């Protein structure tokens, strides 16, 4: 276990952990405001990437493809809320029905994209290109990794500041604490729900441009990061956005570390076993709500 090896594990772990953390954040903003666990978050990420690849393939400039992918996926997330979730909520559908509907959205978007776009995985050019920086014989970092680290810091900071210093953000926080009280003080819960879905969709859509350049874009691209983001949120806890950050980074570093220092065929199992121990010791996640402490 050399220093170089530990540095590489840390760099790699933070890289994939940041992706998990951002997806966890996208779940977080929806779940605190609405109580809804939106299974389709990974799919908004996938749609953003697929749209981007498609726009690039027809010769559009990178900034337009980038914006087009993100806007398209965010609009789809809002549409899912407006046309599926909102009507269900108005009819006071149970949580199970809402979850089932979102599960349906996830499948339709995933396999619909496969049917329209095709099933082959394709590369997506990263905003910073494909450069590799060597920090030693066995240590490297991609230019895209630096984009991931920077974007993670910026997005988390942006969401925290937005929730603290804007009226809409404050509405989200108040709704998370007590929806009835929020309504009494004039918060429109329908608007909050739409904003939460839009913000969650936007974050997931941005993640596509961080993740896919180091993996691929295809109709199944959102499946695994979507699950890992969800796990990261529950490990980190839902008391604040920092829970998503801590959970994501921890999951990433544990995964990469286990694959480096233990036989990698067991790495994922060991990483998840450790996470289960953490949840056993802290059932509300690492960053637990104050009243639960």
């Amino acid at each position: 276990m050399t220093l170089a090896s530990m540095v590489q594990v840390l760099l790699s772990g933070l890289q994939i952990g940041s992706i998990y953390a951002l997806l966890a954040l996208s779940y977080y903003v929806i779940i605190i405001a609405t109580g809804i666990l939106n299974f389709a978050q990974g799919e908004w990420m996938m749609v953003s990437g697929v749209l981007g690849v498609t726009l690039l393939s027809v010769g559009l400039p990178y900034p337009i493809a980038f914006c087009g992918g993100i806007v398209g996926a965010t609009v789809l997330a809002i549409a899912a809320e407006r046309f599926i979730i909102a009507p269900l909520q108005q009819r006071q559908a149970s949580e199970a029905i809402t979850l089932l509907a979102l599960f349906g959205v996830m499948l339709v978007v995933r396999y619909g994209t496969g049917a329209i776009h095709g099933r082959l995985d394709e590369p997506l050019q990263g905003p910073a290109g494909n450069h590799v920086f060597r920090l030693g014989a066995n240590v490297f970092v991609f230019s895209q990794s630096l984009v991931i680290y920077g974007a993670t810091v910026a997005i988390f900071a942006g969401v925290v500041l937005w929730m603290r210093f804007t009226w809409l953000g404050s509405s989200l926080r108040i709704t998370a604490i007590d929806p009835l009280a929020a309504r009494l003080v004039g918060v429109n819960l329908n608007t909050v729900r739409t904003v939460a879905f839009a913000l969650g969709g936007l974050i997931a859509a941005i993640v596509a441009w961080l993740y896919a350049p180091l993996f691929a874009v295809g109709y199944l691209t959102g499946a695994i990061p979507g699950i890992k983001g969800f796990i990261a949120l529950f490990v980190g806890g839902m008391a604040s956005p920092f829970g998503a950050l801590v959970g994501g980074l921890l999951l990433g570093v544990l995964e990469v570390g286990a694959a480096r220092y233990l036989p990698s065929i067991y790495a994922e199992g060991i990483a998840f076993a450790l996470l289960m121990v953490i949840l056993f010791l802290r059932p509300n996640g690492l960053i637990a709500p104050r009243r639960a402490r």
Partner: protein
Amino acid sequence: MKRATFAVISGVAVALLSTYPMFGEPATGKPVLIGAHLDEAKQASYYSLLQKDSINLFVKDFNAAGGIDGRPVQVLFEDDENNPVTTVTKIDKFASAGVDYIVSIGSSATGLATQARAGELKIPHGAPANLAEQLTTDPPKRYYFRVPLRGKYELGAVAQYMHKKYGAPKIAVVRDTTQTGLVISDQWVKDLKNDGFNIVALEQITPGSTEASSQALRVKDAGADVVIVVGASIPDLANYIKAHKLFENPAPLIGNSLFTSGGFLKLAGTAAEGFVYPDAVDPSRPEIQEIDAKLVKAYGDQLKNQAVALQAWEYMRLVCDAIRRGGGDDREKIRDAMEATKDFPIALGPPGMTLTYSPANHDLFTGPDQVVLREVRNGEFGPGLHWR
């Protein structure tokens, strides 16, 4: 005026009809029905759909050239949803429709379901690209015939190649977590050990990860002389290959036949150079180049050099020939004709290969010597290597 218009239209119609035979004698009459089940949207769909495109183009060409003794071939496609249970219901549907033959272009798992059900219904059937070793039994299933590589010959060819080129190398095996990756790698590790190879590492790529530095460093630390990369999740395996090259590991990389997916070269980029893998197709064969040109003309580059599409084409040619030899419509006679196939010129395998089935053999490939090994060169899947 109306009469004049009618006369002009009639004249044009007659002229068009009279010139049509110039394009060939198209098949007419009662169609010969063939059922094909495939995965339309799930994990096996990327190779299912390549085969579907190839079959559609083959049938169009074949019917335009006269079909089976003047009868057109019609293929009924059904989505098996990559689910063996659904597949069985689709086989029953084909049986009710009166198909003469069933072609499996989905996953091996659904191919196995077809083998069981179509065998019970006594409908001849088979697959152009299903690799699973379990599909071949000893003696072979009476109604099942196939042309793809078999796992054990694929590995046999790789083992011969490694012995010849590297003597007794220390081997690392890297796999993904797909069912295909796990099953193939377990089999390869077992067979390589039985063959006397020293397996110094078995590593697994974390699914969906952005890179595979941990696995690449473990393989480097293990001092493997050759690294075998197996599985079906091309993005995961491409990430390993990139990390392997980034850490300047000199050990050559050898894969399984599923790397022929077009996406591999794009995803692995320059790291794919020198990558060796077994294949059922040698692109240097003129027959392959001719089929490939037709597929590319019809569907564009996404069908270029796709082994499964070429296999589907050749399998359909074989099936149609057997139906013709069997007189059409009598499933038992078609089965017998298929089994009696002897020295059928086929564009798969190395140059000059022919296909001969017998009661004891329903496979095209009968040994590792027939397997083509190819290498990625200059960003493309290269021609067959001459190493034997």
